[in-house]
């Protein structure tokens, strides 16, 4: 193990050590709610943030552990986003679990381990590491979904996620096996060359198909999205927020890596498949979200729609031909757009689920649209932030969500203009039309908040004071949503749209 190998472990060690520490400290005989435990979890995520800060910017990528783990910009950005999401989830959970009477140390352990799995997914360039990261993440999330095991919906969510998720892992594994048969290697980078080999091509095409199915399942893209609404609705609210964002970050980073190999040879026709998947996913997510009566369930369906928008960027991902004839995706506008979109989605979504976790009452009630009626006047700040989060998710200018959507649709237009093929531009137009549909259900939240009279039993709603952790997450997400939306970095803190864009560019510079 060289020093470089150790360096690549830096982002991962934080959550790992924190989880072990919590298991040891939390396992004592007198098991009450221990305020030290969430702090330990936060320290673990803090370690990752500091580690990423120390390693950034990288001079070059390093394949550590004989290719088992890759230390590069993309992996670091994934670690950064995941640990932000994980820290937010931890902070929200402190108040949430206390109110639900199930404040157990294992919760934080599992959040840390699932974050660890996501980071491994983001840093892996071979199928084995990817699968193990995926399994670490998924196993922890299956349990977290059912953590409120006295509530039927939580258990239902867990079982549904476990059964369908294991099936998806099986698909993934089968695809992996076929690819190994076709290429004789676990490395992503051997995929491109082997695709030209007529002998192994059938195996690779089928293998990629299975892998794609596994990925699409995890990000909740249609037609593999059926599990998602029920799972998201039944899971503890902070976990739903973490699942919607963290899993997407990890899975999309891995897909970017895989596609940058597959797209080396254009004849595979994967773009056409993804084109239709993006379109169907957007339509299914948006249309189904229109019909929801619960805000949490609406956000679950809208997460499907967001997966669709992100898939657009996967379809149009283009690279420049490098010196050695290989296509270099490090300058790809679409890949950068994906990372920015994920950042914007992370802050807005964690914030929105933060507000929901505060409003939620026993048994998962209190999250229907009607329950928000008039809340904007009663809790002025809560109403304001929830509106901003909804507007950001809808993609209204001035919020981070707008910049993300602008980049995604812009990259599609950019890839399509000047070519004879109009399908990319068409996809961008369809995406914009879809986000108009999305506007309807996001604005319904605002209408409930400000245009409806206060419900009668409103006095009993929620705890009188927002807990410290929840408050912190909501305020931080609020600031982030606006800051990454308003372009100019007017305080010069290295924080606005431009610095974030530079960071995403730096992340992709070491892709291959």
């Amino acid at each position, binding site marked *: 193990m060289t020093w470089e190998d150790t360096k690549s472990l830096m982002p991962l060690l934080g959550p790992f050590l924190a989880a072990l520490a919590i298991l040891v400290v939390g396992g004592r005989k007198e*098991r009450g709610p221990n305020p030290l435990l969430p702090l330990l979890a936060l320290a673990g995520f803090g370690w990752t943030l500091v580690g990423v800060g120390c390693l950034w910017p990288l001079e070059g990528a390093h394949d550590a*552990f004989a290719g088992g783990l890759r230390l590069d910009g993309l992996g670091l950005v994934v670690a950064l986003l995941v640990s932000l999401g994980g820290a937010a989830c931890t902070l929200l959970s402190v108040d949430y679990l206390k109110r639900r009477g199930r404040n157990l140390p*294992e919760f934080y352990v*599992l959040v840390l381990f699932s974050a660890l799995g996501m980071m491994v997914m983001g840093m892996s360039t071979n199928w084995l590491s990817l699968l*193990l990261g995926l399994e*670490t993440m998924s196993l922890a999330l299956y349990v977290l979904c059912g953590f409120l095991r006295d509530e039927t919906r939580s258990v239902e969510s867990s079982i549904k996620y476990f059964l369908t998720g294991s099936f998806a892992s099986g698909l993934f594994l089968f695809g992996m096996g076929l690819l190994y048969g076709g290429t004789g290697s676990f490395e992503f980078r051997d995929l491109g060359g082997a695709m030209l080999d007529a002998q192994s091509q*059938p195996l690779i095409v089928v293998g990629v198909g299975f892998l794609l199915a596994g990925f699409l399942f995890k990000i909740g893209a249609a037609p593999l999205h059926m599990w998602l609404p029920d799972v998201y609705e039944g899971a503890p609210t902070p976990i739903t927020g973490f699942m919607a964002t963290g899993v997407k970050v990890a899975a999309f980073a891995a897909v970017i890596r895989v596609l940058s190999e597959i797209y080396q040879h254009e004849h595979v026709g994967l773009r056409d498949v993804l084109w239709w998947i993006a379109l169907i996913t957007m339509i299914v997510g948006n249309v189904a979200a229109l019909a929801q009566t619960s805000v949490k369930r609406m956000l679950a369906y809208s997460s499907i729609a967001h997966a669709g928008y992100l898939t657009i960027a996967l379809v149009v991902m283009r690279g420049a031909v490098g010196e050695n004839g290989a296509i270099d995706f490090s300058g790809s506008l679409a890949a950068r757009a994906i990372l920015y979109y994920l950042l914007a989605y992370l802050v807005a979504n964690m914030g929105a689920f933060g507000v929901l976790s505060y409003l939620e009452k026993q048994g998962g009630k209190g999250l229907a649209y009607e329950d928000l009626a008039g809340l904007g006047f009663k809790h002025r700040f809560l109403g304001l932030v929830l509106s901003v989060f909804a507007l950001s998710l809808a993609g209204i200018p001035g919020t981070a969500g707008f910049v993300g959507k602008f980049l995604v649709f812009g990259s599609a237009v950019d890839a399509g203009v000047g070519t004879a093929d109009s399908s990319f531009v068409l996809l961008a137009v369809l995406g914009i039309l879809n986000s108009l549909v999305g506007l309807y259900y996001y604005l319904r939240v605002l209408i409930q908040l400000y245009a409806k009279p206060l419900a009668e039993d409103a006095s009993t709603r929620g705890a009188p004071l927002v807990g410290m952790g929840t408050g912190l997450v909501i305020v931080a997400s609020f600031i982030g949503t606006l800051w990454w939306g308003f372009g100019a970095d007017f305080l010069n803190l290295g924080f606005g749209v431009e610095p974030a864009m530079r960071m995403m560019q730096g992340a992709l510079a070491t892709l291959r």
Partner: protein
Amino acid sequence: MERLIFYVLATVAVAGALGTVSFKNPLSCALSLVVTFVALSGLYFQNDAPFVGVLQLLVYAGAIMVLVIFVIMLLNLPDVQLEQERVSRQGIPLALFLLGPLGVLVISRLISIELGEKPEVNASFGSAASVGELLFEKYLFQFEIISVVLLVAIVGAVVLAKKRL
């Protein structure tokens, strides 16, 4: 002769796998899984990987099967319950429609492989030393991450199943 052994072992393995998914009694399923494991182990021996073959016998056919059978016996499922849950046959045409092309593709590829003589391997192939080297050198990181996966599974099982935490 060698090919004959291969076909016998392969057929037994597939038969065992079919039995695993088609028997009604969970214990029969588990026992037919043992058949598959043993046949696979034979295949490893045949392919000059005696250490992997022994591991297959010890770990899968031995330790893991004991666990599986333990769980089945502890759960003590009544037969009636399983009898009622018949697999619906409506899904079969759809499954054939979806998986048929895939099967044709894979099988046609497999048939096209030239069956030649088994390539010579060096003496250390499949030995304990070379397996250990792979585990602790090339796949060290993956090896360690698997222990995290197992830890997550243990913590998760306790959280979900233990009565009083």
